[in-house]
């Protein structure tokens, strides 16, 4: 694996339905290895669209046109003979809504391993399920009820289950789409804690509308606005010495506007990071 496992090259995504909308406009970003990169920006700025185009998740939708390219370890993700499922296996995706597959807790984690045949024996599968549940700090909470339906866990536990499930197929990159936005503050903190622990081992791309979360978790920050990259930098420089005027406005200034020019609720609080980092300080 190179130091930059994932790169986008002039990537554009256009929805070609009733109304043509270019949601992502010629974006070129590097996602460095073993780093957590957050993509931030107001609602509707193309964050999730960008994320889903990184592992060809748009292939399952109609009316989406993609130009430019995404490179995984230097190889094109779009211009390739490799089947899309193999690409998605290497670039995992955790959706915004915590979703347990309609099977047991155990089978949720085993699912990816089973479809890819990534285990030798039942004992091996058991061991891998335990390893990944431990990785997301869920093992102790569910060890005695692995056969219970995944859907019966709390939303925070389900989201950690989703992360464990994605890690189990050993992806090169993990895409997380606003993974704490549907969670209560306590659950969100547990998921953040998990991501913090994982980021030294994995290349993670996290979409968030929460500035505070970006500050707490990110190594690198990409600021997306109306489908364009306004600024990208390491987290310290980004927040302490923003280069672009729009970034300064978005970080602390007046209300930004969305695609239609209507004001967007500010999702960021002024930089008060320091002591007790509560997760809910800006979760609306």
């Amino acid at each position: 694996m190179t130091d930059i496992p994932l790169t986008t090259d002039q990537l554009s995504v256009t929805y070609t339905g009733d109304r043509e909308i270019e949601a992502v406009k010629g974006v070129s970003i590097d996602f460095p290895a073993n780093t957590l990169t957050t993509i931030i920006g107001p609602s509707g700025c193309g964050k999730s669209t960008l994320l889903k185009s990184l592992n060809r998740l748009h292939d399952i939708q109609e009316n989406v046109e993609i130009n430019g390219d995404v490179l995984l370890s230097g190889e094109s993700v779009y211009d390739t003979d490799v089947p899309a499922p193999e690409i998605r296996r290497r670039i995992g995706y955790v959706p915004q809504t915590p979703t347990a597959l309609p099977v047991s807790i155990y089978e949720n984690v085993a699912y990816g391993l089973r479809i890819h045949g990534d285990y030798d024996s039942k004992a091996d599968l058991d061991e891998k399920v335990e390893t990944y549940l431990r990785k997301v700090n869920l093992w102790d909470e569910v060890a005695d009820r692995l056969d219970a339906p995944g859907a019966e866990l709390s939303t925070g536990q389900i989201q950690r289950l989703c992360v464990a499930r994605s890690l189990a197929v050993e992806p090169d990159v993990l895409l997380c789409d606003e993974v704490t936005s549907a969670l209560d503050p306590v659950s969100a903190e547990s998921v953040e804690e998990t991501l913090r622990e994982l980021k030294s081992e994995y290349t993670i791309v996290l979409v968030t509308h929460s500035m505070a979360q970006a500050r707490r978790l990110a190594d690198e920050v990409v600021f997306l606005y109306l489908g364009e990259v306004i600024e990208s930098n390491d987290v310290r420089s980004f927040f302490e010495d923003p280069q672009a005027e729009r970034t300064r406005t978005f970080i602390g200034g007046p209300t930004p506007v969305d695609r239609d020019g209507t004001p967007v609720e500010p999702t960021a609080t002024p930089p008060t990071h320091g002591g007790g980092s509560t997760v809910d300080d800006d979760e609306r």
Partner: protein
Amino acid sequence: MNRYTRQRLFGIAVRAAASLVVGVLLLVIGVTVIRGGGVLLADPSIVLTPPGARYMLEGTGGFLHAVLGSIFIVGPATVVSMVAAVSTAVYLQSDYSSERFSDAVNMFLNVLWGTPPIVYGLFVLTIIIATGTQTSLFFGIVAIAIFQYPIMTRYTDEALRAAPETVRESTYGLGATRFESARMTVRAAAPGVIAGLVMGFARGIGDAATVLFTTGRSTRMPGGLFDAATTLPVLIFDQAMSFNAEVRSHAYAAAFVLTVVVLGLIVLSKLLAGRYARYTPGGNR
């Protein structure tokens, strides 16, 4: 008339309508249970006894032939129909077909749904005549399967549409193929799919028009796939038309058996759906 009087009158009207429907339903079940249950209690063996040589004239023996006919026709038809229905419903999801195409298929399914079953019977009869064969168990299966297909497809399609989109996204995000993803989505939609299966079976086992002139209205035990047979609904019609009072009374017993089977299936599907609902993201549906 002031607003509150109008509200009271409306309240009375809706309650009357609901009572009327429930009342008629209770009456139907009541008559079946009292008359059919009585006949069955007096001689439960008629369900398990093959018909005598002159059953339709004298009521000798029982109507095992129709019970078996129903099972042998509706069982396989339900299996065939269900496989086709689930496949079609998966195909109608966005991963496989365009919205415009799935709209067109849906309209076609509505037409099929609304087609009177006797028309299916006639269609299958045309095949029988064209192929120079004769009415049999096999063509009963064909006719019932065609009849059940739009019902099951509609239920399954609705269930799949209601399944959370994120289940699909999650499976694709793990590197699942469309087939693997579809399997998981069907599981997520299991309560609705089971409801479709049971409704299809219930409608199939209760329908007389489709099998009336495709199975042969046999009065003997079914002998094979290409032998004439009969089913309970057709038998009930024949029994009720009989001159013999005992044969006529058997019609109620047969109706009772049908009603109990359908009620039992509905209860079973509720239990099964409840089991699967525990696994369904978003709780019980």
